[in-house]
């Protein structure tokens, strides 16, 4: 159906703001959940149950001095965080969160941009995200930052391959690269998590490494590299990097929900059309909880263990999954 351009603009605006709000409260949720798992309360001073904590953090970051180190390359130094945040946010333009709706005679689609090549676009823009880190590290002109950013990018590039390969099984089964059609292929039947369980596990592990979450969060390990690529960043610019990491995590979880967990469909049945986004958010919340749980529980991997695992274990498993799925799809 033809979508008015101003509907898309309003939708994009709403989605971006919702994602930012989710990011803010994800930081709070993470701290509270981690705290409870460690038998303590999380932040509970700022507002009831700590609900105003993200706002307090934001105000703190805004008030900090925005400096540029003398030796840094100005324009690139400033471009790094923006690139990271931009590439993290763009993924949400193709994630379907509901069937379309007719609102006052205007058709509002369930996705901001319905593309034939949505999945390739997600990976393409995701691979551009590596530049945010390279630029941040290199433009800071500091050894820790450069080393940290090189390590981060090597990790990202290695696990990107397994990430892309793990979704090939889903693409083969759905027969399309369009995310709306992949969600439609899971309507009323088993979600792709069931036949593609190996793919789901590989996707989650590779996704944890892609977003530098524990146990793959060596780039953030203060004990190792001071603070990696964002050593020389302070105040709101550091806030932008932090935001881009969390939004990357949210977008990866949203992608996982879309590809493997049935998108906005309910389990086996579909309620009225406005329940679509509710199911989507519920599944997203479960996945985010899983990521927070992993962070609290698992110890960090050393860099060489990380790289060895990515290339020698995860990549062959992903390739095997793709090959076996291909054979079965053709023969069955």
């Amino acid at each position, binding site marked *: 159906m033809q979508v008015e351009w101003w509907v898309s603009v309003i939708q994009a605006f709403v989605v971006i703001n919702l994602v930012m709000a989710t990011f803010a409260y994800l930081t709070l949720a993470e701290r509270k959940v981690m705290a409870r798992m460690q038998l303590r309360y999380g932040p509970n001073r700022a507002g009831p149950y700590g609900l105003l904590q993200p706002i307090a953090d934001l105000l703190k970051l805004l008030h900090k001095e925005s400096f540029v180190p003398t030796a840094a390359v100005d324009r690139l130094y400033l471009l790094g965080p923006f690139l990271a945040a931009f590439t993290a946010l763009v993924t949400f333009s193709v994630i379907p969160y509901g069937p379309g709706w007719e609102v006052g005679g205007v058709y509002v689609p369930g996705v901001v941009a319905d593309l*034939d090549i949505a999945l390739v*676009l997600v990976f393409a823009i*995701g*691979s551009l995200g*590596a530049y945010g880190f390279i630029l941040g590290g290199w433009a800071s002109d500091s050894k820790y930052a*450069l080393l940290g950013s*090189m390590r981060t990018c*090597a990790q990202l590039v290695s696990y990107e391959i397994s990430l892309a390969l793990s979704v090939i099984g889903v693409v083969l089964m759905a027969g399309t690269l369009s995310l709306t059609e992949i969600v439609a292929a899971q309507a009323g039947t088993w979600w792709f998590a069931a036949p593609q369980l190996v793919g789901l596990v590989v996707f989650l592990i590779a996704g944890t490494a892609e977003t530098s979450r524990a146990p793959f969060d060596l780039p953030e390990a203060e004990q190792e590299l001071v603070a990696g690529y964002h050593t020389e960043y302070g105040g709101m610019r550091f806030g932008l990097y932090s935001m881009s990491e969390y939004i990357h995590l949210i977008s990866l979880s949203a992608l996982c929900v879309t590809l493997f967990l049935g998108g906005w469909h309910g389990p086996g049945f579909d309620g009225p059309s406005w329940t679509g986004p509710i199911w989507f958010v519920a599944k997203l919340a479960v996945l985010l909880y899983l990521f927070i749980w992993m962070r609290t529980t698992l110890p960090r991997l050393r860099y060489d263990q990380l790289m060895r695992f990515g290339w020698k274990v995860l990549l062959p498993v992903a390739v095997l999954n793709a090959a076996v799925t291909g054979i079965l799809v053709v023969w069955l």
Partner: protein
Amino acid sequence: MAGFLVWVIWFAAAAACLGTGVAVVSFANPFYSALSLIGNLASLAVLYLLLSAEFLAAAQVLVYAGSVMVMFLFVLAYLGGRADAPWAGGPPLLRTAAIVAAVALLVEIVVVLGLAWGDNLSDPAEVTGAFGSPAAIGELLVTDHLLAFEITSIVLLVAAVGGVVLGTTREKEATE
């Protein structure tokens, strides 16, 4: 309105493309050259989109801008951006010869284009929405162009093996 918008986007993308292209060959510091090339690849992706090649645009960003240039930047960060004087290649005679050759090439191409423009390049074929879609390209890759597909995979395998071979240092060689 739509035609005008397409022209505006085309101008912006083409200007960015040519500008970054000149920037790549002009910068002294190779790091900036590499960054300009990334801009060049992105603007080329926009041009591909205007030519109804959406899968190729995405593949361009994914493969070229996302992976090949990351490789480049890795090597550049490793080697340090040693700047060399930009237009200092070779003795002056060689330099003028190079410029003359490039200009001659350009003039030749423009002449050919001018001759062809009137007759053959005026009506592009009518294409459906499925032109340039991954399904259509995939179908061609496994039917008409299967040999090219398979040979490309072997080329990539050879390149991967070659990369590993070039990268391993033999124990006897003292390199540091």
